[in-house]
């Protein structure tokens, strides 16, 4: 049996792999969407924070023997704290200015973070091995799926849904959404907005950090891993439209899959397929797939 001219086994296999990549896109674009949606900052440093998350896990294992499961909690926490610091020290001073300044500032920060890790650890990359419990692979019949990758998909979708729930369905979420539009007023109602904003950025950063930890066993941990990814994730976000948190998650997964299939049919194009889709979507629907028309 064949689907689009490839054996259906390979087809299913590629679909699976697409989902794995999509899971990373989803988590990263989710974090970006949270930070952008709630704080109006295009967080260019998101890729760098992702990288820091992966490095944090690696350092924990390498230097202190902290295992994967602990790193899964501690590394995002560390990145979250770093994020909170960044918000307190830098971003705080930019509220009320053109959001483009936030973009430029975080761009600068990402250069700094990347540079620091580069001088410290070089670029060739550090290996982080898959935790024992998740080692090995399952033969799905149509492919051999490493257990770890299956875990990545499950973990990331769970996290995404949780985040969506908190933002769209809870009172805290309502404060956050309102704070985006008029932080001062929300504060005047009695909500401690400055702390909330710091925590939100921290949480967005922690999401990036978490994605980093999840990615560490899949790819080499290198200082450049974030900057390679961030632009694709930007495109994902533009395609999704930043209109809804859920939109960014769905778009992320979808694009992962599409990109996966491009690798089969026309591998040369796999690096740009996301951008091509972006251009097409923008022409047809300027606000993105899930964005609200302005």
């Amino acid at each position, binding site marked *: 049996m064949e689907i689009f001219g490839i054996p259906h086994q390979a087809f299913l296999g590629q679909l699976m792999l697409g989902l794995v990549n999509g899971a990373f896109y989803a988590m990263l674009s989710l974090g970006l969407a949270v930070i952008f949606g709630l704080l109006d900052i295009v967080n260019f440093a998101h890729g760098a924070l992702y990288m820091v998350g992966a490095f944090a896990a690696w350092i924990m294992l390498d230097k202190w023997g902290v295992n994967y499961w602990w790193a899964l909690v501690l590394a995002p926490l560390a990145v979250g704290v770093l994020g909170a610091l960044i918000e307190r020290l830098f971003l705080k001073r930019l509220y009320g200015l053109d959001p483009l300044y936030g973009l430029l500032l975080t761009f600068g920060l990402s250069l700094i973070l990347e540079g620091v890790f580069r001088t410290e650890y070089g670029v060739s990359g550090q290996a982080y091995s898959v935790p024992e419990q998740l080692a090995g692979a399952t033969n799905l019949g149509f492919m051999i799926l490493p257990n770890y990758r299956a875990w990545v998909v499950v973990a990331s979708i769970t996290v995404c849904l949780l985040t969506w729930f908190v933002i769209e369905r809870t009172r805290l979420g*309502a404060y956050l959404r309102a704070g*985006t539009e008029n932080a001062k*007023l929300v*504060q*005047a*109602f*009695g909500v401690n*907005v400055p702390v909330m904003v710091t925590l939100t950025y921290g949480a967005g950063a922690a999401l990036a950090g978490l994605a980093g930890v999840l990615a560490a066993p899949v790819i080499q941990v290198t200082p450049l891993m974030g900057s390679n990814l961030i632009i694709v994730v930007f495109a994902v976000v533009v395609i999704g439209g930043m209109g809804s948190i859920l939109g960014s998650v769905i778009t992320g997964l979808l694009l992962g899959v599409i990109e996966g299939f491009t690798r089969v049919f026309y591998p040369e194009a796999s690096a740009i397929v996301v951008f091509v889709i972006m251009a097409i979507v923008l022409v047809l629907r300027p606000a993105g797939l899930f964005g609200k028309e302005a």
Partner: protein
Amino acid sequence: MPANEFLRIENLNAWYGESHVLHGVNLTVNEGEVVSLLGRNGAGRTTTMRAIVGLTGRRTGSIRIRGTEAIKLPPHKVARLGVGYCPEERGIFASLSAEENLMLPPTVGPGGMGIAEIYDMFPNLKERASSPGTRLSGGEQQMLAVARILRTGARLLLLDEISEGLAPVIVQKLADMIRALKAKGYTIVLVEQNFRFAAPLADRFYVMEHGKIVREFEQSQLQDNMSMLQEYLGV
């Protein structure tokens, strides 16, 4: 401090960035009183309210709310002293539904109005409850902005131009509402261009000009002061 003094402002100065807007405002509002601030466009009435809540830039002087000095407090702490603020520009949130907007402000004290009571007063809001906040009509947004702070149990209400953009019927309803609130012992500061709306409601009036209080008089002295108001407000 006398027990019934709810708000006491002394020598309040406030700035927006470089520009100095309030130049030593002094005023007091007693518990259960309705006080109206009158003045021309740009006299500084909105700024006074914003300064109380902590939304201007730098400010100096003293603002005591139920005896607590609030000049150094961040806005959320001021609100928790029992202050509810209805801003001039309404501040309805686009990403929240009308009902979410209504439910947004956290409770800052006991005795707030119930949802049913509020919907009773503004049936439009009930009808549009699930619409995004800013999709409401101008007037509906105004209603929402007022209704929102009635829920929180705030005892000091700062109402900035609440009759603005409302149909005459609704304005009448608002007037009734303010009387009802006063009867319940709320303390209210009213800023209004619409003098005819504010005149019968207020117990006391302050007149502002160039960021200063220039006159103060009671409801009973209203008639005597009409010519002065004519001069200040062009009423």
